[in-house]
Every structure is written in C-alpha cells, then in structure tokens.
C-alpha cells in the first residue's frame, strides 16, 4: 500500500475523520500547557523584563508562517507532478493559516519592538522578509479566489507558489544585503545562556508543538471543507445539466 493512497479524496476523508479527534485534543493540551506555563510560570529575563513571555506566541507563529509556505510548496509540486486533487486543496487550505500566523508574528513582533527598540516597526531584514511573505500569502490567496475553474486555479497557484518561493529566498538575501538589522536572533539566543535556557526552553518547545499541531488540525479541517465544496460544485453542475 503506497502513501499516495491518502491522496484519494475518499481515503483522505476516512483517515482524517479518524485522526481529527486525537489531533485536536493533543493540540488543545499542548497549547494550554505551553501557553499557561509560559505566561504564568516563567521568570522575567534580565534584559527583556517580562516581555520575554511574548516569545511563546511570537516564535512559534513565526516558525509556522514559514513552515506553512514550505508545506504549500511541497503540495503544489505534488499536484503539478502527480495531479492529486487533495494535494492542491491542502495547499489552498493552508494558505489562510499561514497568513494568520504571519500576521500574529508581525503583530507580536511589533508590540515587542516598542519596549525593546523604541519603535513598532523597523526595517530589519527578518521583519522585512516577513512583510514580503505576508504579501506573497495575500497574492496567493487572491489568485485562488479570482479564478473560477478549480483545476486552472490549482495549476496557476501552484506555478505562483513555486516561482514565489524562489523569489522569496532571493528577497531574503537581498534584504540582508540592504540592511544589517536589529533583530535579536542568535545574539540573544536563549540556549546559550545556560542558566536560564531550561526555564524558557521547555515551555517554548511545548508551545511550538502546540502550534504545529494546531496547523495540522486546521489543515485537516479546512481540506475536508475544500473537498466537500468541490463535490458540491460538481453536484450543482450536474443538476444544471439536468
């Protein structure tokens, strides 16, 4: 039995309906534990003060914003090469999640920036790359919405996703070239400060797991919706032929 069988819509519906309860419970557990731990039970950091708690929403959402795009890239390639409809629909389902994650990372980063850098926004490479990513998501979603024929929409958005990925990488390089930046990143890496790393590290990992699981849950739910919507479209068209 090959992995590709899960790309069959029916099989996907069955498998996902079995999986969903487990995944969603796990998601809730991880998110609640991670966020409660992070928010209530971690100490202030020397240079960040209590704002260090923002890390528990900021970093996981930033990671998922990127990972969602990578997942869309992979599913787009699968659609173009193997023409599995579920794959294309999963990409469509993931885009709004990625967009939301990008927005969360941007907003929490902006809020964090005010106390740390004295400004909500600075044209730092990492921040800038996220802004560009935000634009890519917007364009991608807008293209899906604009095209009526579902297969054509899947094809065109896949092409956009691939070309866009190349340009997103290029932008990352260009932005680095353009401005050296303020973003903490590795300089204030938490793992290096042995004494506090554990305190922050574990809840952070749980939060990241929670966000990953949330992404998986939502992709499953939304892909199921997209599959059903496709079937409705086919049924309605059939009725019209009457």
């Amino acid at each position, binding site marked *: 039995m090959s992995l590709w069988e899960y790309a*069959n*819509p*029916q099989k996907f*519906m069955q498998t996902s309906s079995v999986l969903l309860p487990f995944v969603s419970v796990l998601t809730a557990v991880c998110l609640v534990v991670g966020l409660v731990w992070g928010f209530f039970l971690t100490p202030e950091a020397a240079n960040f003060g209590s704002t260090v708690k923002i890390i528990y929403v900021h970093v996981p959402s930033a990671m998922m914003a990127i990972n969602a795009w990578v997942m869309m890239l992979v599913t787009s390639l699968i659609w173009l090469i193997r023409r599995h*409809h579920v794959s294309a629909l999963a990409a469509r389902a993931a885009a709004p999640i990625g967009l939301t994650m990008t927005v969360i990372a941007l907003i929490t980063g902006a809020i964090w920036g005010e106390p740390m850098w004295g400004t909500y926004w600075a044209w730092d490479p990492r921040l800038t790359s996220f802004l560009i990513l935000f634009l890519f998501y917007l364009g991608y979603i807008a293209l899906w919405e604009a095209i*009526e*024929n*579902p*297969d054509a929409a899947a094809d065109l958005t896949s092409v956009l996703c691939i070309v866009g990925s190349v340009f997103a990488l290029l932008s990352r390089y260009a932005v680095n070239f353009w401005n050296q930046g303020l973003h903490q990143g590795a300089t204030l890496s938490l793992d290096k400060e042995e004494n506090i790393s554990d305190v922050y590290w574990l809840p952070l990992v749980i939060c990241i797991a929670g966000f990953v699981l949330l992404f998986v849950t939502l992709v499953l739910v939304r892909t199921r919706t997209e*599959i059903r919507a*496709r*079937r409705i*479209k*086919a*049924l309605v*068209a*059939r*009725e*019209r*032929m*009457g």
Partner: protein
Amino acid sequence: MRYPMEMIVSDLACARGGVPVLEGVSFTLAAGQALLLRGPNGIGKTTLLRTLAGLQPALAGQVSVPPETMAYAAHADGLKATLTVTENLQFWARIFGQRGIDRALEDFNLTDLAGRAAQNLSAGQKRRLGLARLLVTGRPIWVLDEPTVSLDVASVALFGAAVRRHLDGGGAALIATHIDLGFPAGQLDVTPFRAQPRGLDHFDEAFA
C-alpha cells in the same frame, strides 16, 4: 499543401468550465470535405471546436490529425483596431510563415478597404477580414465557429465560394453554424452527443 490529410475524431468528450457538455462524438473529415456542425444554442459546439483546435484538453477520446494543419477562427476575430486591413493580414501571414495576402484581399472583397484601420470597419467588414485571415494561414483544415455572423447575402456567397475553392484545393472545413451556407456539405447534429448527467455516486467522481 496537398498531403494526405484527414481528421479522425473518435469518442471524444469535452467539458466547459469543468462540466462535461458533449461525449461520444466521432466523425471523420477527409480532404476535400466540409462538415457543418449543427445544434441548438448552448449545446457545446464552441466547446467542441476549441477542444479540436487544441485550446483545451479533451475529457476522453482521441483526435487524430496531422500536427499544425488546423486554422481556427472563433467568435472573436483577433484583429487589431489600430492596424490597417493590410497590416492585420500581413501579420498573420508572417506568423504562419506565409507571404502574399493579395488573394485573400480579393477573395473577400477587401481590396478597396486595404488601407483602412480595422476600427473603422463595419461589423460585416470586420468579419470578412477575420475570414480572410484563414487564407493566409496556408493551413488545410479550417475550424470555424459561426463564420457568417453579421455578413450580408453577398458576403455569405463570397465566403461559400472561398470554402469551395479551399475544398477543391484539397482542404477541409469544419463549420459550426445556424444558417444555410449555400454549398454542399455533410451535416453533423451534435444534439445526440449531449453528455448524460453522471451519477456522481462515488465521492471521488467530483474530481474526475
């Protein structure tokens, strides 16, 4: 341009906007023949012609035809409003690697209008220019979608004569039309090939 040339369509199915409209269409069109596609509005003639011309993929079935032998003329004429009649024709001639547009101008009574910009033509004159384009493609199989729209009686006759000459020269023509064109031709009513609504009993069929 006389080479053994035949268009064989077997069991073709085609869809518009993801909805199957015709299925099981089969016919053969040999050199020297013309075939008129008949059928009520909305049955799928345009869709069938676009599929044959290679502009959209077939749902099922085969179209066997030598490559680069078809010239397609759609509802729209592909004319540039600001170019003159001559320039429009010359452009298409060059794209299709042909030269000499004089015969096309004469055959469709456009010589007097040769220097006129396409935007200053009347509806029927524009259509004549669109049809003249077929002659400069040098291609043997004409695939035409309602070619005589807006034409007056004299121009319909011009068109009929042009088709007959084309057939005599070993060409072929497949024409969707609602009116009588005044030359002998086979007829194919596509109404019987209307796609049957499928059961869609299986969930997966929504993705066919």
